[in-house]
């Protein structure tokens, strides 16, 4: 970003070499904190030699893979059913209070999976909170059932939001044609609407599947042996770190497999929605259907919002603030999240310029790499970073700097996506005009384009802020000594079954996340 006037002419015709190098540097700095440690992780796993092979080939690994994939499958299916069903009810029927239902159904997005898990383990069970309140024994929901519940609740909002948005864009003409040809409303949905929703549903299910595959907090609290949980168990319970590393590499491969499959699926059929001029006719529900719809939506609301919030508040009331208010952890959460959001956005701007304005074979890879870094399970990122940093990074090891760099890198794709699409909408001719009037390219960029990208930058920053607040495994493994966040507080108190102690940071986490989510949700429309 030099302002040397001598190279002005060159800049007008095309990007200068220095500029391009600087843009590339931003991209590399952004992604290195995830990518480089992974190189070392693979190296370590490979150096494990025969032991590594034993780990891969053992029946236990196969068993793990199957149980993890089973969880991914059942969560994806149930999240898809709930997400699509809720989208249909709130977008396509004349159900009363649709505006409110939309909020209720989308709101669980704010609740981290481990908070849902915490409420499941503390509210259910023969002597849990609910059994206490109602006087009869509720069954426990540990293991697969608990993991399925927590992760379904945590992931269906993704599918709901994507599918509901797509439903609003579908041209009603096809449906009208279907009805005109005598199809019943149900068959119109199944044969006309659903096929058009293939792509958004696929995208939502991909998100749900990756989330489930990567989730560590919920499965560890409900005690379900999925890959992430066992990786942590091997890490925590074994003096030899190699098996954990080998399992981590396998999990990464599994995640890449899901991405690859999704990529193929998306390539298969592409549905391009046309802009819709008129709203679709809403389907009117009869009385039984209406009652059923209310019942289903209420059940979803209770399972995903009512139970968690109710349980947390009950614990809080039963033993108010057993450890006081965790101000230190709040400050920790806020400061790393703000720093991570800032770093991610600051690096995303030049990277977006590289991708949008200097598009080429190599810059496409920057985007893909960012997406990969985002999709890789966080527990494996944490392991890789610990391994690399403890040996080779000296004072950076267990420092706040490293933690922020890793967060920014992991969530870089979110910032990049938002900033990039904002930049793509701004015509380069605006900058060219400014430059022809004598502004340097740098000042044209910062004075004209950057302010126009304001909203995209804010959205990207908010997304990174939100996900960093909720992040658990990377924080757990790589945080500075004595540094706590709300997420770590919730997880460690819940792990000791100190529910009243966990309720305070959990509620604070929800409160702090709710505001940015509200801003995002309302500004996004």
């Amino acid at each position: 970003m030099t302002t040397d006037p001598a190279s002005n002419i060159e800049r007008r015709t095309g990007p200068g070499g220095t500029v391009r190098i600087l843009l590339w540097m931003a991209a590399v700095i952004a992604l290195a904190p995830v990518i480089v440690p992974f190189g070392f992780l693979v190296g370590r796993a490979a150096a494990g030699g025969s032991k590594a092979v034993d780990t891969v080939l053992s029946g236990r690994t196969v068993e793990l893979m199957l149980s993890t994939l089973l969880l991914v499958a059942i969560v994806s299916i149930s999240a898809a059913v709930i997400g699509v069903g809720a989208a249909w009810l709130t977008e396509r029927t004349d159900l009363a209070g649709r505006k409110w239902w939309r909020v209720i159904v989308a709101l669980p997005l704010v609740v981290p999976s481990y908070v849902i898990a915490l409420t499941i383990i503390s509210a259910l069970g023969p002597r849990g909170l609910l059994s206490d309140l109602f006087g009869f024994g509720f069954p426990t929901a540990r293991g697969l059932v608990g993991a399925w519940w927590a992760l379904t609740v945590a992931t269906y909002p993704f599918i709901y939001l994507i599918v509901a948005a797509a439903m609003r864009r579908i041209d009603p003409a096809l449906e009208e044609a279907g009805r005109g040809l005598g199809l019943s409303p149900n068959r119109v949905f199944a044969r006309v609407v659903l096929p058009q929703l293939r792509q958004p549903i696929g995208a939502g299910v991909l998100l749900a599947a990756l989330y489930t595959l990567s989730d560590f907090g919920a499965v560890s609290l409900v005690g379900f042996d999925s890959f992430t949980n066992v990786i942590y168990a091997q890490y925590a319970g074994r003096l030899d770190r190699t098996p954990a590393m080998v399992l981590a590499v396998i999990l990464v491969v599994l995640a890449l497999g899901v991405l690859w499959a999704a990529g193929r699926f998306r390539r298969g059929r592409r549905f391009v929605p046309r802009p819709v001029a008129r709203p679709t006719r809403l389907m009117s529900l009869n009385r039984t259907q209406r009652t059923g719809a209310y019942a289903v939506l209420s059940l979803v609301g209770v399972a995903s919002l009512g139970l968690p919030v109710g349980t947390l508040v009950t614990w809080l009331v039963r033993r108010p603030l057993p450890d006081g208010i965790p101000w230190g952890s709040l400050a920790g959460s806020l400061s790393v999240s703000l720093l991570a959001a800032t770093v991610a956005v600051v690096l995303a701007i030049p990277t977006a310029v590289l991708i949008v304005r200097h598009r080429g074979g190599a810059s496409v890879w920057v985007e893909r790499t960012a997406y990969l870094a985002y999709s890789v399970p966080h527990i494996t990122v944490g392991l890789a970073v610990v391994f690399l940093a403890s040996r080779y990074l000296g004072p950076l090891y267990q420092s706040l700097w490293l933690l922020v760099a890793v967060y920014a890198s992991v969530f870089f794709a979110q910032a990049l996506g938002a900033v990039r699409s904002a930049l793509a909408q701004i015509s380069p001719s605006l900058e060219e005009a400014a430059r022809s009037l004598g502004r340097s390219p740098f000042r044209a960029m910062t004075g004209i384009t950057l302010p126009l990208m304001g909203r995209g930058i804010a959205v990207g920053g908010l997304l990174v802020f939100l996900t960093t607040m909720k992040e658990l495994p990377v924080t757990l493994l790589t945080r500075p000594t004595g540094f706590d966040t709300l997420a770590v507080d919730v997880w460690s108190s819940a792990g000791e079954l100190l529910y009243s102690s966990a309720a305070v940071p959990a509620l604070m986490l929800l409160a702090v996340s709710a505001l940015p989510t509200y801003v995002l949700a309302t500004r996004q429309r």
Partner: protein
Amino acid sequence: MPNRFLAAAITLILLSAACSNGDPARLTVYSGRSENLVGPLFERFTDKTGIEVAVRYAGSTELAATLREEGSNTPADLFFAQDPASLGAVAESGLFSALAPEILALVDPRFSDPNGRWVGTSGRARVVVYDSTLLSAAELPSSVAGFTSPEWKGRIAIAPTNGSFLAFVAAMLVMEGEAATRSWLEALAANDPGKYAKNSPIVAAVNGGEIEAGLVNHYYLLRLQAEEGETAAANHFLGSGGPGSLVMPAGAGILVTSNQKESAGHLIEFLLSAESQEYFARETFEYPLAAGIAPLDGLPPLESLGSPLLDLSALATALDLATDLVAAAGLL
């Protein structure tokens, strides 16, 4: 605009520099004992001596592995662990410096490293915690071997990644050999035990009616009772002289790479002082090992527990194999 960005960037850099670990006079402790158990002790130490302490709380085995991974790069000055096996693993890797004889003299040598590299700070007995509304002590097996019989299928809880459990398995290896330990673990795994991350959730789960019995240390239940009064869960001391009746010390050692060995030594002395030993007896309900403090009333005396006499340094060498066997049995 660029100026404002620059200003913001500089502010952020200063802010984060202020937050990161600057203070070289701070003592860094890796604690395998949880914050709610020992956090208050570190605060008292700082109040008393003015020495700031930064504590990294995690599992004992995890921290032992971390210390071995970090080697000479470790920022830690002191390792405080809940079991002799993780302490031994660090000692065997040559990462502990020898403790001063005055410190070692404070504790019965049975509860410290025979080579003087770490010292026991409090004792904890292995017990079976059980749901007294469903079972009586007479219905419990007389040794851990009994939990492998089919009638215990799905009814017993363990914490396979926990340092105390792994140290107990290491003790079994030392006492009964590899073949016996392997078959015990396999038979236990076949009984589909409930797996928990730590001891305290097991006690809460037994008390919550989630599972009938669990293999834990004795004091978690006493803690719960101090908070909640009467509990459905009760402790059973196996007392058979086998690995199930082991009394294991929690302990501490000073890292050889520490540049604050003197402060670290003060911290260990503080842990062995009458004040801290009293804290272990009254607040964490463990067996005090120094300063002539008696354990809590109602606890069976240390000598009556029938704990086997073990060379604690042998536990360390057995820990690697113990974790491998636990993993091989499918319990990790």
